[in-house]
């Protein structure tokens, strides 16, 4: 340990152009939350007063301390010494016709990369990592760049992402990693994390995917016969439906974990949205193709042109040990506008696929041919002004057409990337917010004109109203509806009818609360969106991906949460794969390695219920199960994803006879359960006078969430003291494990 002079704790001691850190002695409790997180070690505990003192000379003004002090006792004044970000070139393509040139460029030189890497504070509690949906070790890879070691940087990235080259190009970093960068949270320009990631991904060789040896399993127990099928091969076999980012995430993690992976893709090309949804000028074909080249080399069985229907989804679990549904949100939304059924009204998928092919082959798109042969450029009306709409419009411009985007939202609330909007405008796209199409008129059954009316939106999240102002009429040759997508109903059914939300309320996980990502209101860079809440919502969805939605069937990506981002889909796919590798499920007829896992969730007030639950847990262990006893309030998605079977043990609340039911905490917990996908559940309650309707109420709640109650028992005082029902734990354990065993085949 070095020895330093104790700093003077005075804000005014710092020169005006230097940040100063000042600790309010009265309120500082010496908890050291600031000093353990300060990137530069500018805060030290003065053990005489047991308060922290700040050293303005080493303070860089990142304000991690301000954000993480629980008592707001730290004040940082003055500028953040964020340094100047290396310029990133956005190329303005002058000759648009047929151009597939990437418009955004990465970091050009090692010198620039080193300079940018030097801006990273290497925060001890990096908020950027929480902001990244895949939780890439951002300070870790940037430190490797600073050390001049691109291979290590790449390896660090590859630990958590399979798509660094793709994500670096398509991620909206401003609301993810860069929006959560300490500099950004301090109101300054964040480290160019995306550009650095791209620098690594583009300049370091892609390492081959190393697959783990097939896991050592219980195959030595001998073959299990079932319908003539031999279960000698004990390698986990997983089907992945869809080859988009979510499928890539799942397949890569599964194959790395030693599973045999079969991927079904309905298109002729693998990559899903990466191939047809994102134009070449954002994501070049070569980059979009790279993940599947690696995966196929690693032994993934890729079956192209293979559509999986809803009926097939029911059958796949009988041919595979686990199924990952990564089929995306493929149903385009359509504007219910008069004339919407005319010829020449397309959806974005159709247009982008066709435009992609046309640009790739250097051909003209038939629909954009000069309408009257006069050489006049075709006019495309894009309904929507989000990122997809920009892609449509910019592709149309490259195919020689004029493009108008209309969106009924106010510009201030539109979910479009500002840089994308600027680029589109620079390429001559006419973007009109607060405008909507109220009628499409046709000639000979083909769309020819659009009536556009003004709209007004006063607040974000409020449906805009169409004003009765003057209606503009535009001559139009093609209309493309690019207003978003939804999940097809058969997939939505798998989700239990509702999508997993990406914005959630309630209390954040305590492991996140201490991080500075929550403590700050949104910095302007994140476009008035609180980056902490966004990150937390994404993390919620990622966690949910670990849960099976149906027996041995996991749903990930847009199919789980609705239209979202590439990186989120990939992270969810990876998370589901990790859960599958951890669980090692096997289809009927195949022996599963390891014991049955039983999670015992206990809500006990005086210890009586806990003692009961412990007895049951003992019986379960005696029967060979792997048991975890956890306080009910600590049981979350992660714990449930681990378990094959669940025991819920609770005390009974109520006034002797009135309002008798499960303890309030238990009821609340049961109400908030995620889908249990047919998981066997045993219910246990302990009561004083009468259990009332406790067990039926719990049963109803569990069944509502898709659980299967296989045993339910109430224990009163007498059974407690006299030892009656003494064999109940064994009986319950038997019922539970019997069901699990039957389920597992």
């Amino acid at each position, binding site marked *: 340990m070095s020895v330093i002079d104790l700093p003077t704790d005075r804000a005014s001691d710092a020169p005006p152009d230097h940040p100063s850190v000042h600790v309010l002695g009265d*309120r500082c*409790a010496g*908890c*050291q939350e600031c000093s353990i997180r300060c990137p530069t070690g500018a805060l030290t505990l003065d053990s005489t007063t047991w308060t922290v003192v700040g050293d303005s000379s080493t303070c860089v003004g990142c304000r991690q301390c301000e954000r993480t002090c*629980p*008592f707001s006792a730290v004040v940082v004044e003055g500028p953040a010494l964020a340094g100047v970000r290396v310029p990133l070139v956005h190329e303005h393509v002058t000759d648009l016709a047929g151009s597939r040139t990437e418009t955004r460029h990465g970091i050009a030189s090692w010198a620039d990369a080193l300079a940018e890497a030097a801006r990273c504070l290497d925060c001890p509690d990096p908020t950027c*990592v929480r902001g990244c949906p895949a*939780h890439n070790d951002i300070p*870790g890879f940037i430190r490797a760049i600073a050390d001049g070691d691109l291979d290590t940087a790449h390896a660090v990235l590859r630990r958590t992402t399979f798509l660094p080259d793709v994500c670096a190009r398509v991620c909206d970093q401003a609301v993810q990693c860069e929006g959560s960068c300490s500099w950004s949270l301090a109101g300054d320009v964040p480290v160019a994390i995306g550009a650095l990631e791209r620098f690594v991904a583009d300049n370091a060789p892609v390492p081959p995917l190393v697959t783990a040896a097939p896991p050592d399993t219980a195959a030595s127990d001998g073959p299990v016969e079932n319908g003539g099928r031999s279960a000698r091969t004990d390698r986990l076999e997983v089907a992945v439906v869809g080859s988009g980012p979510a499928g890539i995430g799942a397949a890569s993690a599964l194959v790395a974990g030693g599973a045999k992976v079969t991927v079904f893709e309905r298109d002729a090309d693998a990559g899903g949205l990466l191939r047809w949804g994102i134009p070449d000028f954002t994501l070049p074909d070569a980059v979009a193709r790279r993940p599947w080249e690696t995966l196929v080399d690693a032994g993934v069985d890729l079956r192209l042109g293979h559509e999986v229907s809803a009926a097939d989804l029911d059958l796949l679990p009988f041919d595979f040990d686990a199924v990952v549904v990564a089929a995306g949100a493929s149903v385009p939304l359509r504007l219910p506008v008069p004339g919407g059924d005319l010829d020449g009204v397309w959806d974005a998928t159709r247009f982008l696929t066709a435009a992609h092919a046309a640009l790739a082959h250097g051909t003209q798109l038939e629909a954009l041919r000069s309408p009257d042969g006069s050489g006049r450029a075709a006019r495309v009306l894009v309904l929507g002004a989000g990122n997809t709409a920009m892609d449509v419009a910019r592709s149309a411009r490259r195919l020689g057409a004029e493009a108008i985007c209309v969106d009924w939202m106010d510009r201030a609330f539109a979910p479009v990337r500002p840089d994308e909007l600027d680029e589109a405008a620079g390429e001559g796209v006419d973007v009109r917010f607060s405008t909507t199409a109220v009628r499409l008129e046709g000639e000979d059954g083909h769309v020819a004109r659009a009536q556009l009316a003004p709209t007004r939106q006063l607040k974000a999240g409020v449906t805009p109203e169409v004003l009765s102002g003057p209606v503009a009429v535009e001559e139009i040759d093609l209309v493309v509806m690019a207003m978003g997508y939804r999940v097809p109903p058969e997939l939505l059914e798998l989700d239990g009818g509702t999508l997993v939300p990406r914005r959630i309320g309630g209390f954040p996980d305590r492991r996140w609360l201490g991080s500075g990502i929550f403590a700050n209101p949104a910095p302007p860079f994140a476009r008035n969106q609180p980056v902490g809440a966004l990150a937390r919502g994404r993390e919620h969805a990622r966690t949910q991906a670990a849960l099976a939605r149906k027996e041995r069937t996991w749903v990930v990506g847009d199919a789980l949460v609705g239209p979202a981002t590439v990186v989120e889909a990939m992270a969810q796919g990876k998370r589901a794969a990790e859960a599958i590798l951890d669980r090692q499920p096997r289809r009927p007829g195949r022996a599963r390695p390891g014991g049955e896992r039983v999670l015992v969730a206990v809500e006990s007030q005086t210890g009586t219920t806990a003692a009961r639950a412990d007895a049951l847990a003992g019986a379960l262990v005696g029967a060979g199960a792997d048991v975890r006893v956890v306080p009910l309030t600590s049981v979350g998605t992660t714990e449930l994803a681990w378990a094959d079977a669940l025991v819920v043990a609770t005390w009974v609340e109520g006034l002797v006879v009135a309002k008798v039911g499960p303890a309030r905490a238990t009821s609340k917990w049961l109400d908030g359960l995620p889908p249990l996908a047919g998981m066997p559940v045993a219910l246990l309650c302990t009561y004083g006078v009468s259990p009332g309707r406790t067990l039926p109420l719990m049963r109803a709640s569990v069944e509502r969430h898709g659980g299967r109650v296989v045993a339910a028992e109430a224990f009163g005082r007498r059974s407690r003291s006299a030892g009656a029902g003494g064999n109940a734990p064994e009986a319950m354990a038997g019922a539970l494990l019997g069901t699990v065993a039957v389920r597992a085949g």
Partner: protein
Amino acid sequence: MTITAPPDRPPRSDAPPDPFDPVPVAVHLRPPRRDGVAERFAATDPPRGWDVAAHPRVARVLHNRKLQFFLILPNQLVFWLVIMLGLLGTVVPGLNFGTAITWYIWFCLVFVMMVVVGRAWCAMCPFGGFAEWIQRRTFWQRTQKTLGLGRKLPEPIARYGLLLSVGSFLLLTWIEEFFNIAGPGNPMDTSLMVLGIVTSALIFFLVFERRTFCRYVCPLSALIGSVGAVGTAAGFRTRDRQVCLDCKTKDCMRGSEEGFGCPWYTWPGSADSNLTCGLCSECYKSCPSDNVGFYLQPPMTSVVAPNRRRADVAWSVALLWGLVFFQQFNATNVYNSFDGWLAKYTGIHYPNPIDYLGIIVAMAALVAGIAWVASRALVRPDLPQPLLSVKRSFIDKTSRFRAFFVPISYGIIPVVGADYFARQLPKFFKHAARIVPSVGAWFGAGSTHSSLYNTRMLSNPSIVVVQVAVIALGTLASAVATWRITTRDLAPVSDHPVATRVTSLAIVAAVGLTASILYVLMHAAS
């Protein structure tokens, strides 16, 4: 001075990320400083066995979110009754339940609780309690969004700690003297005063975060906080400090699903006195490791033992001594002639803010002046280095003067507390029985002629005896405390240990003697 620099961060791990909680892989927090932590808190940590919450039934009560609500509720009802009766009830102060309960009973009770327990009143206070219900938008539930602006008290004010509270106490006392509210005078004045406190509490709760009002502004906060140091409730403290140091989430300060973050800006992991523990039990509820206990401590531990002696507490004690001196002195003939003389020149009649503030400040300054002289004579000019070369904030600054003044101010806390208590005794002994006819008055039964209305528990000479006895007890407690403080705090900074001890004990004796003499002169005046 030099202190060791924070240790560098732990090395990065090359282990693959944990799929279930991948973020910690990238987290490389510096280890917290923990050198000397055991010695630092050894004297102030309550005895391990004195954890009341170790009892399962107590633990159950403390875990219950409704606990504080039910502590506040009775007081809430009484105080709204006081407000209502003050506005609508009889104008006879002794027959008005509002004034009777406030001035004959409540004030005494608060002082008893303060001396015995500490901030017990704060846990059940209807003023802060009411405002907090509104701020939290709930009576007892853990809510996430609070009502109001959630500002922080500006740093230039907050740095003076409890002194703002002393200021508001001085102001309130002056107003109370001006309108003769506590006399008690017109019951409506009492109502308006209570309403005023509730309103200002509400405003502060809606503008500032947490219990900024209670911690900094409440007129009673400095008094209860400093005199409460005598009390036997150590408050909510850590059970195992290492667990607190290892805790990365500090739910007790930030709040969790089970409880709010400490409304009083106190961390159980570093609390070394009961000064800022409002006994609200939120930290106990929110600790994820069940590492917070509700501890008792030997009386006066928080006077004698704290390592960190706060200048705001020292100055508060000096000023509070000034105030109680004024309240005694103003019942004497000397004061009356002085006040009359001053009124002739200034045209301001009692309570003349000039002599009010003048006497209070003079008394505080007298204590400080004696301390300054004593420090010049007794405290070594070359103080041990760690105390001097750091420019700390007002509360923690060190100097020769402070090295003497701050500890001896802590030493006189018991006698000052006893003085405040003794001041309330005449009203209690003379009029407490009036509470019965004042209740009877609701039913038309109470009257100024009823025997209970005129019943006195003690005669005036007996009251004086009790008062002097209380002061004697306080002085004794102060002497014991000062003896120990001298050994611990003053001996290391002085080359004249005997003289230092004699001087500090003399200060205690002087305070006790002054108060006693004044009580004799006052003849049990209320």
